[in-house]
């Protein structure tokens, strides 16, 4: 089927884009029109669909890699490639010899042990999860697992990461816009979707976070990540001309059509679509198992997953240098009578594409048959262009250069106006009551009800689980796994997310969450000098200059943190246009949200460190400096204070504190270590007491770096300044720890066998509570 576009006007071009859900702008449609005018023929629908998905925001990241004219408080700055000139910018001046794949291929890859590397990737599956939480989330995790399977010549998935953002759990049903599912329904469906897929795939889900905010009611966010391990000699892949295009795994159907373009646009109250895919973990498990066997026998030259855009994307990308000829009638189908473009664009799950030398086809076929994995040879990598046939009839013939480099790019305006926050004001109240209320905040409380549903023991690699302690109910900063059981080396993963700070300043938010991810990885034993970062931006309508201005600020913050901490971003993914259009035409944007993941090797898992007090009679130190940084803090959300700055990242002290923690853990001189984040010192101390070991902490020994006032105790207890840790040290190790530290280190108290958390200011008791009661409040925060 051909479409007549050569002689039509601009409004008609726009109408074609809209009618076929292409999500192409007028400028892009003009570029397509020009291309086919030069070819002197009309395009087929398959060609237009293929171009639309290749150029989609989801696949091309047009905004993040596009040019931006940015104005901040009347000062102008131009970026020709926003991502390169912000997030990536510090890499050129950084030691990155441990990084094997930076922002190329399906995942970021860093060195692990000799001969092995770590691959990491996280994706979002927001729009599908908003309309069908179970299916959307399960295919989200299924998709990112395939990303790892398709990294290099294929990595083995060893850990799943799940991070969700939902509307408030107690949102009244009658306040929901039409067609919007209640946050509790989305929450339960999403958790079950990730649970069922991950558990059935036999991959531990050991790292995660959940955020609740009314801003996510119409647009929940579902981040799914996977960590894999891969032999170092399998990191590179290259399609060879003449290789067979081998499709393995699930059959192709109409499910998930237009996923890439759907992901690149907003939701509205009419959204009701075929965009929902249904996951089938058993098929993917079979694919994963056989793929690694085929890899180890050297039976293919390259592999990638069929994700957004389906075969069009997978074959189009793999054949970018060689060209490809595809015969769609050879694709195994779920439904009869599918159109050519539907087969080519379908986003049916559990499919991988391999580039197989002809002479290895027989061996590979017999292995696939022995494992009951469906496969089909659907064409050949050759010819320089992308040629698609269906029953012998040509359906597409696109130059690879035009497809991959022909899109016009976009140029946008962004504006940011910094407003000085109101002066910090702390209400009169009882700090102990504030502690109770913060512990009961669903954003802070225990995730046990969710974590218990995930299998984090499968594969037998867990070293630091999401919940530790005698009763396995004490939350940890990060997680550590030991994916090669014969080795003592492990992998630490830490996460950072805090959309609340972004309400004041996305730049500080980005720097803070980047450092939080690093804190969480280092505090459990990660060697962050050999670590790497991954960014996942979820933003609102970036055609709005102010929204884009916030995104630019966040990118600047990532770059700034990467430079200060000397840790590179090696992978990332953005999901833009997370907004909902109400029936009255009003756009509701999500809060600008950034998830940063830090992955770092652990030299010896026996030295990894947990987050709760171990025994009585040990010293408690605070490492790092405390500032009057209470803006948008947990205390503010609980209504005990207002105004004030959100935390900043300090170039002169943060790296020193992080290095102190890394070194101390690697020497085995810390009994426990907990980073200070939401809720500050009070929450960290309470969580450390969940083990039943008590603590006596005197905050009069602590100084506030940027001046004291009448709010002193509140700031010391609840400030959320970055780069701080509570550490537990035996008296024997104390001199060594103190000699190690170039960082600010304050001895605040001792652990004891009282079973109570006591926080005092000199002789004045501020908080005294049994740790069992504190844990009970914490465990009851989340409704399930």
């Amino acid at each position, binding site marked *: 089927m051909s479409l007549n576009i050569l002689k039509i006007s601009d409004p008609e071009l726009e109408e074609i884009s809209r009618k076929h859900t292409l999500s192409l702008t007028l400028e892009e449609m003009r570029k397509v029109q020009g291309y086919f005018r030069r070819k002197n023929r009309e395009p087929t629908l398959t060609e237009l669909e293929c171009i639309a998905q290749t150029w989609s925001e989801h696949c091309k990241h047009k905004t993040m890699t596009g040019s931006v004219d940015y104005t901040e408080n009347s000062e102008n700055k131009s970026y020709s490639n926003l991502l390169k000139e912000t997030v990536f910018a510090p890499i050129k001046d950084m030691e990155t010899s441990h990084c094997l794949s930076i922002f190329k291929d399906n995942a970021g890859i860093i060195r692990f042990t000799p001969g092995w590397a770590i691959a990491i990737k996280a994706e979002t599956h927001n729009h599908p999860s908003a*309309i069908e939480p179970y299916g959307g989330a399960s295919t989200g995790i299924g998709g990112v697992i395939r990303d790892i399977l398709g990294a290099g010549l294929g990595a083995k998935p060893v850990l799943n990461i799940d991070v969700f953002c939902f509307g408030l759990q107690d949102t009244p*049903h009658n306040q929901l816009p039409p067609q919007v599912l209640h946050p509790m*329904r989305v929450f339960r469906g999403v958790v079950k979707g990730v649970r069922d897929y991950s558990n059935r795939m036999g991959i531990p889900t050991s790292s995660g976070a959940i955020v609740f905010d009314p801003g996510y009611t119409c647009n929940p966010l579902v981040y799914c990540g996977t960590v894999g391990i891969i032999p170092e000699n399998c990191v590179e892949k290259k399609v060879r001309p003449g290789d067979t295009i081998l499709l393995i795994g699930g059959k192709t159907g109409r*499910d998930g059509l237009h996923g890439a373009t759907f992901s690149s646009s907003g939701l509205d109250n009419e959204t*009701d679509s075929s965009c929902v895919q*249904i*996951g089938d973990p*058993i098929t993917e498990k079979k694919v994963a198992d056989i793929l690694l066997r085929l890899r180890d026998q050297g039976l293919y030259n390259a592999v990638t997953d069929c994700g957004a855009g389906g075969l069009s994307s997978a074959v189009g990308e793999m054949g970018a240098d060689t060209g490809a000829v595809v015969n769609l009638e050879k694709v195994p189908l779920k439904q009869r009578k599918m159109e050519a473009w539907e087969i080519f664009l379908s986003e049916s799950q559990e499919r991988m594409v391999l580039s197989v030398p002809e002479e290895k086809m027989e061996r590979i076929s017999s292995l696939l048959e022995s494992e009951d994995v469906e496969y089909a040879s659907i064409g050949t990598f050759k010819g320089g262009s992308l040629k698609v046939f269906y029953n012998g009839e040509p359906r597409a013939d696109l130059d690879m250069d035009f497809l991959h480099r022909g899109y016009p790019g976009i140029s946008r305006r962004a504006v940011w106006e910094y407003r000085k926050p109101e002066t910090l004001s702390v209400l009169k109240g009882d700090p102990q009551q504030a502690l109770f209320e913060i512990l009961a905040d669903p954003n802070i409380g225990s995730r046990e009800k969710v974590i218990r549903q995930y299998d984090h023991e499968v594969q037998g690699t867990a070293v630091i689980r999401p919940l530790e302690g005698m009763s396995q109910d004490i939350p940890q900063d990060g997680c550590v796994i030991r994916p090669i059981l014969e080795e003592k080396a492990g992998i630490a993963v830490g996460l950072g997310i805090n959309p609340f700070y972004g309400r004041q300043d996305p730049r500080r938010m980005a720097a803070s969450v980047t450092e939080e991810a690093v804190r969480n990885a280092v505090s459990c034993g990660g060697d962050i000098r050999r670590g790497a970062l991954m960014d996942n931006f979820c933003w609102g309508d970036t055609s709005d200059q102010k929204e884009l201005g916030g995104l630019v600020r966040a990118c600047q913050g990532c770059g700034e943190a990467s430079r200060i901490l000397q840790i590179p971003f090696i992978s990332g993914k953005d999901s833009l246009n997370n907004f909902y259009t109400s029936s009255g035409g009003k756009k509701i944007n999500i809060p600008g949200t950034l998830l940063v993941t830090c992955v770092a090797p652990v030299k010896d898992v026996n030295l990894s460190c947990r987050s709760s007090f171990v025994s009585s009679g040990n010293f408690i130190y605070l490492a790092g400096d405390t500032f009057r940084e209470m803006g948008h803090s947990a205390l503010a959300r609980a209504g005990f204070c207002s105004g004030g700055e959100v935390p900043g990242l300090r170039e002169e002290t943060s790296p020193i504190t992080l290095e102190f923690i890394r070194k101390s853990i690697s020497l085995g001189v810390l009994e426990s270590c907990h980073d200070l984040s939401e809720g500050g010192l009070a929450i960290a101390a309470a969580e450390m007491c969940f083990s039943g070991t008590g603590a006596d902490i005197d905050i009069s020994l602590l100084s506030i770096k940027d001046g004291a006032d009448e709010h002193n105790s509140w700031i010391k207890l609840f400030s959320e300044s970055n780069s701080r840790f509570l550490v537990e040290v035996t008296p024997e190790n104390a001199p060594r720890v103190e000699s190690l530290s170039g960082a600010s280190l304050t001895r605040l108290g001792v652990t004891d066998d009282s079973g109570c958390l006591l926080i005092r200011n000199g002789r004045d008791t501020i908080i005294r509570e049994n740790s069992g009661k504190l844990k009970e409040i914490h465990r009851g925060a989340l409704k399930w």
Partner: protein
Amino acid sequence: MIRSIVEVYRKGACPESRELSSEVKELGIQKEHRISFSRIYIIEFDENTLPVPAEERLNRISREILIDPVVEEYYPGLRDTEGISIEVYLKKGVLDIPGRRAVEAAGYASLDRGLKKISGGERYIITAEGGADEETCSYITRKLLFNKVIQEAKYSGSGVEIK
């Protein structure tokens, strides 16, 4: 073509049922409602190729494929129960993983001769003190029990679709 239905239900307390019953309260419905959940399978046989009587094959498939015998039981047909019964099925064209897996498993157990198709579904029975009314049940169904993007729901017996 022989078309049979099998209901698979928990032997003891069902966590899904407990969860759903508590979710009804969150909807703001004052009267206490209880929801009981079970899975249903529609099994289609070709009588011309089926080597044994359909009932015998249905029982074997149910016993060996569809239930976890430790915690579940099955009933050929739909159990007679008090309350309003609602059936939820995937819309045509939506991938039916439970049905597909059941057919595959029947193949591994050599029970696939004469077996045409297995489709998965869900059954919810809503009860309330003094009886549940259809209007409330319809509201509960729309809010909690099905997602109209991929599923369709109907009252058992009358077959009236819930929109």
